[in-house]
């Protein structure tokens, strides 16, 4: 497919869209789907057929609209109306009200509320707007123009430069500058190189990558293809968690569709650039989110992290130079290529550019998927966008970064969200999970919950993580039971320090963070549990 063909197709799609009076979009992300949102679509479609309005009303299954707390959500275009908590019958009722020219007021969502107005949607611009299973929908909103621009108008060095300019940093957690990673892989000589998309979103409490893959899979493929062009790779893998069946299905169908249109595959756009993509499934191991463990897993091995150096950029998948980026990172690329690095860098703080997608969950009114500019404060996210804490309870902490992150207390709510600030607070950006905790939760319980997770997910390769996580888990059990001693507190802190400094991979090194951060901000909760005198024999813990 050439650029002209692409533009023509987009124009045709726009023309087609115009002939409908209304377009009813139903969210079919995992969240709404679990409330049978597909049945709503079916019911409305049946009604449309019955009334013979197929040429006037379009019913479309789209991806996540963000406000998962109110799903299933129905959106009416071009009126821009949103309806919450729909059932098939109610969906039909909305349709009927539209046909009566009196759009239903009941169950309408206020689209001017801060949840929508305070967001800045960039990665999620098409999410909840296009049908993720139709490549034409993506093309209609300008999809694949960035890829064609990159491979026909730019050199690979220019593409890398643009990404460097943008200041984009890895969205998987650590925040390594993406452009730098690309330029390293580009510089390593090699006939065969790989691009790997890390979609093994393992942090409990995070679903950004799932939503992006489910709602706008072509965007990720386009980003990967641009990356492949930039670094000189010809083969790509999307490593998706098996727990995300819908995302897997949509990525697979997106790959097929893109291949069919010649946007992926051999001699893309008539250029010598080849890029094939395959999907590989994770199989339930959090550690595979660590890039070297992920590579081992793609190779069919136990997902144990490798020693670095050599870094994947030099010797990655099957020993070849490999670029590993996460879903959201790739999803940022088309925008950067189309609009330029400077466009991207206009948003954000000095060191953290662009926008970030967060999954807002826990004890918060508006649970859902949001995208905000870097530098926004936690308070704005939780109180303005998130709508605060429900049930009249008090905010206690927000947990970011999953099992590798920490809990941030109320006194730091005005901290701007960027990589460095969150790290300075003893937490981390992570992949974007934000779990809000209210005053009904105990922080030792939280710390132990995460330590249990790390203990079960430790790969077992290095001793500090394999045994350290278990000992920490047991020690926290003593605190929970109120039979801990002063010495136990010292041991707890020493073990955290040991794991942080001596564990083999990032997961083990970061595993103590939930303890360290709760000790930092909620130390009194630990001290309250310490027995003044000698302790009783430890409980049977394991």
């Amino acid at each position, binding site marked *: 497919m050439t650029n002209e063909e692409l533009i023509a197709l987009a124009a045709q799609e726009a023309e087609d869209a115009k002939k409908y009076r209304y377009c009813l979009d139903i969210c079919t992300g995992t969240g709404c789907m679990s409330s049978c949102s597909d049945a709503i679509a079916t019911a409305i479609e049946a009604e449309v057929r019955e009334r013979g309005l197929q040429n006037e009303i379009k019913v479309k299954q789209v991806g996540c609209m963000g406000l998962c707390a109110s799903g299933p959500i129905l959106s009416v275009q071009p009126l821009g109306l949103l309806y919450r908590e729909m059932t098939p019958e109610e969906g039909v009722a909305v349709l009927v009200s539209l046909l009566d020219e009196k759009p239903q007021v009941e169950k309408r969502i206020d689209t001017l509320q801060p949840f929508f107005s305070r967001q800045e949607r960039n990665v999620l611009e098409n999410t909840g707007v296009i049908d993720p299973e139709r490549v034409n929908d993506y093309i209609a909103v300008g999809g694949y123009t960035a890829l064609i621009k990159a491979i026909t108008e730019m050199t690979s060095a220019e593409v890398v430069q643009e990404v460097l300019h943008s200041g984009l940093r890895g969205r998987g957690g650590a925040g390594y500058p993406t452009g730098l990673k690309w330029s390293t892989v580009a510089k390593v000589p090699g006939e065969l190189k790989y691009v790997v998309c890390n979609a093994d979103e393992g942090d409990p409490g995070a679903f950004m990558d799932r939503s992006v893959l489910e709602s706008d899979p072509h965007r990720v493929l386009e980003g990967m293809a641009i990356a492949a062009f930039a670094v000189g790779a010809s083969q790509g893998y999307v490593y998706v968690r098996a727990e995300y069946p819908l995302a897997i299905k949509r990525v697979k169908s997106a790959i097929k569709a893109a291949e069919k249109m010649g946007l992926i595959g051999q001699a893309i756009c008539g250029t010598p650039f080849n890029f094939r993509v395959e999907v590989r499934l994770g199989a339930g191991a959090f550690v595979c989110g660590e890039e070297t463990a992920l590579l081992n897993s793609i190779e069919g091995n136990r997902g144990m992290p490798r020693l670095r150096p050599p870094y994947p950029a030099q010797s990655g998948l099957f020993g070849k130079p490999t670029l590993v980026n996460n879903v959201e990172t790739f999803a940022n690329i088309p925008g950067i290529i189309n609009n330029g690095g400077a466009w991207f860098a206009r948003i954000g703080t000095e060191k953290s550019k662009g926008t970030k997608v967060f999954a807002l969950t826990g004890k918060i009114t508006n649970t859902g998927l949001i995208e905000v500019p870097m530098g926004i404060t936690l308070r704005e996210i939780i109180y303005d966008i998130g709508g605060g804490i429900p049930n009249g309870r008090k905010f206690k902490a927000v947990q970011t970064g999953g099992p590798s992150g920490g809990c941030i207390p109320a006194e730091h709510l005005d901290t701007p969200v960027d990589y460095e600030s969150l790290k300075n607070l003893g937490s981390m950006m992570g992949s974007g999970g934000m779990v809000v905790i209210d005053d009904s939760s105990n922080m030792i319980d939280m710390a132990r919950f995460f330590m249990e997770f790390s203990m079960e997910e430790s790969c077992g390769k290095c*001793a500090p993580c394999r045994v350290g996580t278990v000992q920490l888990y047991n020690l926290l059990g003593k605190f929970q039971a109120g039979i801990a001693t002063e010495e136990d507190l010292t041991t707890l802190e020493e073990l955290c320090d040991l794991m942080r400094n*001596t564990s083999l991979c990032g997961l083990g090194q970061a595993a103590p963070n939930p303890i360290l951060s709760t000790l930092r901000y909620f130390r009194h909760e630990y001290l309250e549990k310490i027995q003044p005198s000698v302790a009783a024999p430890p409980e049977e813990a394991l």
Partner: protein
Amino acid sequence: MSPTTPLIKTFTIDGKPVSATEDETILDVARQNGIDIPTLCNLEGLTPTGQCRLCMVEIGGTNRMVPSCVAKPDEGMEIVTDSERLLKYRRMIVELLFSERNHICAVCVTNGHCELQAMAQRLGVDHIRYGYLHPRFRLDGSHPRYEVDHNRCILCGRCVRVCDEIEGAHTRDLRNRGIKTLVITDFDGRWGESATCTNCGKCVHVCPTGALAEKGKSVAEMAKQRHFLPYLVMRRKGLKK
């Protein structure tokens, strides 16, 4: 000055000026210079994996630590192999290993010949601060000549590596993960019924503890013989040429 990378790198270990070729690790160079860095998973002749974390050393002027068995030195580095901090971490790691399984030296076939026991002594570990986990294992005595006692295994992976890299059988691997990791034979079967084991006994002799032992040995009788390993590695290199 030409910008080409010198083939020989010079640096210091504990203040002593030393040099390394491109392929040599910090541990290699330390050993050549009579500096003994503690290790448990490392064994000359097997691929180093850097997993026991005991051989970590400090890079002077930074807060960084690297596993010396795999890390290669950079020109001008100042390596510290022995500091209060390193000693503290090493002790803790050994204590964690003791707490993990049921290491009862007094009744062990390798009492007095055990690397874990010797490491505890060397590092001054006279008690274990962490709670013993006391897992339960079944012994495998099905092999006519050898036996496995997981109570004494520290998951160093030497047996897995020697079987794969030197013997070429890959009879052993690990099952599960994390604290539940266990060394297995074939499809987690009994050793005596293995279809792939060549009964060579290499795994027994590379094992640092009493986890793998010859049958019929009583307490303190199982000393390990490892001279075959560098010999075999040398022979095979020779044959390849």
